[in-house]
């Protein structure tokens, strides 16, 4: 594959045990990609439901949709499918991989660190609130699910409508005990806002909220600064706010001669070099569930000039 000059494609891994709701989430994404051309790689088409009217072509392992998305099945070679997705023309805006129900999604995420053309955006792990406690009691299943939760940037505790309050408490307690600073989203039908899962490049959601029962409200806050920002103190402030902010993205002047792109998902923060923006102003956007905690420290970190 020839090296490419353009920016790497964000990669999201959707993990979670069998029946945790991965396909439900992906079905919604394919139906409503909100202006982004997703390439979604799934284990099989079996449970994927795409409106026939949306399908523009179906060749072998690939379905192309009128909304610009494609859905590919892994067939007998996941890596081949992923490489093919990277080579598509036009290049997808975002690649989403459905990990198998027994896979450790972190191992798939590892690929982004050895492939220049990919950038790991996030590892989203779903857990079935109605089954999790029973699954953890099964010695053949427990360590597989533990590893999935250990690998998550964000956990969606799904099917909360099918679990009673005691079970929910037990689930949350178990996850929190394993991953202290991990944000746990309670959802039904895997219905978490896409901005939280797939980033802030998605077009605004114009569909009526009445179609989205159980939708969690979230907030976005923007900060600007004309100072040189200390990457170190900003990271500290962001980490202090985790897990209440799910994502952050910034284009920041980190030294008089250097601009950096910051991406944060869950507690994972990554920096990359980026060209100076036209307005030469540092900007940071954070997003999280309503209400966001007091973010004045963030503004302070952005505004305090570094020597």
């Amino acid at each position, binding site marked *: 594959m020839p090296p490419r000059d353009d920016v790497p494609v964000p990669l999201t891994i959707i993990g979670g045990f*069998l029946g945790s709701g991965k396909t439900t989430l992906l079905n919604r994404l394919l139906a409503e990609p909100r202006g982004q051309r997703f390439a979604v790689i799934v284990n099989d088409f079996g449970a994927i439901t795409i409106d026939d009217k949306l399908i523009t072509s179906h060749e072998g392992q690939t379905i192309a949709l009128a909304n610009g998305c494609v859905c590919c099945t892994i067939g007998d070679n996941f*890596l081949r499918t992923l490489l093919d997705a990277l080579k598509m023309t036009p290049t997808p805006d975002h690649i989403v991989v459905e990990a198998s129900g*027994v896979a450790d999604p972190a*191992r798939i995420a*590892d*690929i982004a*660190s*050895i*492939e220049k053309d990919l950038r790991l955006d996030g590892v989203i792990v779903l857990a079935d609130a109605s089954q999790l406690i029973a699954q953890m009691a099964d010695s053949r299943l427990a360590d597989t699910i533990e590893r999935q939760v250990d690998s998550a940037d964000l956990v969606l505790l799904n099917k909360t409508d099918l679990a009673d309050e005691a079970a929910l408490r037990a689930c949350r307690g178990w996850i929190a005990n394993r991953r202290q600073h991990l944000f746990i989203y309670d959802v039904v039908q895997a219905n978490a806002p896409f901005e939280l899962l797939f980033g802030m490049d998605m077009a605004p959601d114009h569909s009526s909220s009445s179609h989205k029962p159980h939708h969690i409200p979230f907030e976005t806050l923007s900060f600007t600064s004309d100072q040189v920002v200390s990457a170190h103190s900003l990271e500290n402030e962001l980490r202090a706010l985790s897990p209440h902010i799910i994502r952050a993205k910034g284009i920041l002047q980190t030294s008089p001669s250097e601009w950096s792109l910051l991406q944060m998902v869950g507690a994972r923060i990554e920096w990359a070099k980026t060209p100076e923006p036209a307005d030469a102003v540092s900007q940071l956007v954070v997003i999280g569930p309503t209400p966001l905690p007091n973010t004045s420290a963030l503004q302070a970190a952005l505004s305090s000039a570094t020597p």
Partner: protein
Amino acid sequence: MTTKIFAAGKIITMDASRPTATHVAVRDGRILAVGTLDQVSQWGNAQVDSRFESKVLMPGLIEGHSHIMEGSVWDHPYAGFYDRTGPDGTTWPGLKSIDQVVDRLRQVSDEMAEPDAPLLAWGFDPIFFGERRMCAADLDRVSETRPVVVLHASLHFLNTNSVVLERGGIDGSTNAQGVMKDESGAPTGEFAGMVAMYLATKTIDYDIMDASTRPSSLWNFARVAQLAGVTTATDLHSALDDTIVDRFVSATSDPRYPIRIVPAFGGTLMAAPQGVERLKSLVPKSTDKAIFGIVKLVLDGSIQGFTARLKWPGYFNGHENGLWYIAPNEVEGILRAYHEAGFQVHMHTNGNEATDLALDAVEAVLTTSPRPDHRHTLQHCQMADEAQFQRMAALGVGVNLFSNHIFYWGEAHKALTLGPDRSAKIDNAGAALENGVDLSIHSDAPITAIGPLFSAWCAINRLTSEGDRLGGEAEAITLDEALYTITMGAARSLKMDDRVGSIEIGKFADFAVLEDDPYEVGAAHLKDVRIWGTVLGGEVFEAPVSAPEG
């Protein structure tokens, strides 16, 4: 209607009623009579073929667990520690140092026309080089312009040169499981697991399954098998889409194609109900030489890759438990679908926890849907203990043990993966037979070289590459038992014992033609028995003469 009589120095029949003979009569590709010249001549006019007068015939050997990929790896240079014979009969000498590996690959690289075309080699095994690990600087001596990737024998690890590191943006800041680093934090160019597989797939940039079923690969696979005296071999996991099925049927329909192929349908490549329908539609496409109808399920990973599922106390070096490749609670449902449709299911279970899971699933399925003589078979099943062999016997489950592991990875099992106690009992063929379990043994080619006589030698002698014996009398099997295992045992494991596996009237005239008598050579040297070639359906296939390659 012509009848041919092969006269041999000795015929080992694997038929208990007539263990040895001197003549076998063949008509219409099948065995017409076995015995003395006088006995086999009584069917009427026949031509006597005496070319095997000083040779030994056995039933054609059967490789019950191999992969068609053995045919396509020979498109690439071999970089292994042990001698290995390619499809044209050329024996590639084992490479005894990293420098030797570099030298061979540099020679290949220098002969390649395009300076930036990728170079992939295979079969490398670092466990024979002690502390010294191959690194990117070594392979930079092969080429600094093209990506160089050296796959390890296990297929779970690989080494690259610096070109691959640069193209992937891999440096000291790269943090991912499977990216090996030196003391200074720089990547060494060695990779494991998912990242290794990604780099290999990206570098060769072709579909390995597609490549493996190209006609040239199918022929190469057959030739490698034939060189080992094999007349029936499995491809024990295949997508079996229309293209692949056509390729199998078409290649094998050539009368010069020297083996029968038994591909196993990958039972999780589609949902079970569709898979069942797919396989039902393939059964009628079977021919005498391409036989469809068995299913493969892969439950866990490999022991040497630390991905096999182990019961307590787990891996000897403390590595975390391995991976399920099928959700444990799905195995029974998938097995049930194929079982109730009448298919035979082969389940890959390397670790003993996976073996338990498979046996639980069989027991549950049989409890509600009894089926006589289902012969579901556990593949690899390397850690099975007495209790599990007894369960297999009770459930009518067969086992195909990975005996070659004793030699190739026995030392690693002692020191790293299993420790001294469990490695002594690994691939316990003795216990399988003692408990009355149908037994076969295998190479898992291309993981190790295809060679049933070598597998038999491993099961009898249980010697590691360092010459240490794993276990004692209880785990070993005898020469008689081992020869039965690579013929009738393997035939039973494929439900083909009505057609192949012994030299008996009515069966296909499939023979291994040996230069030496295994009984004279003896158990200790069984692997050194020389193979002249094979006979398939009465047609004679002389193996290409081996010429050492520099």
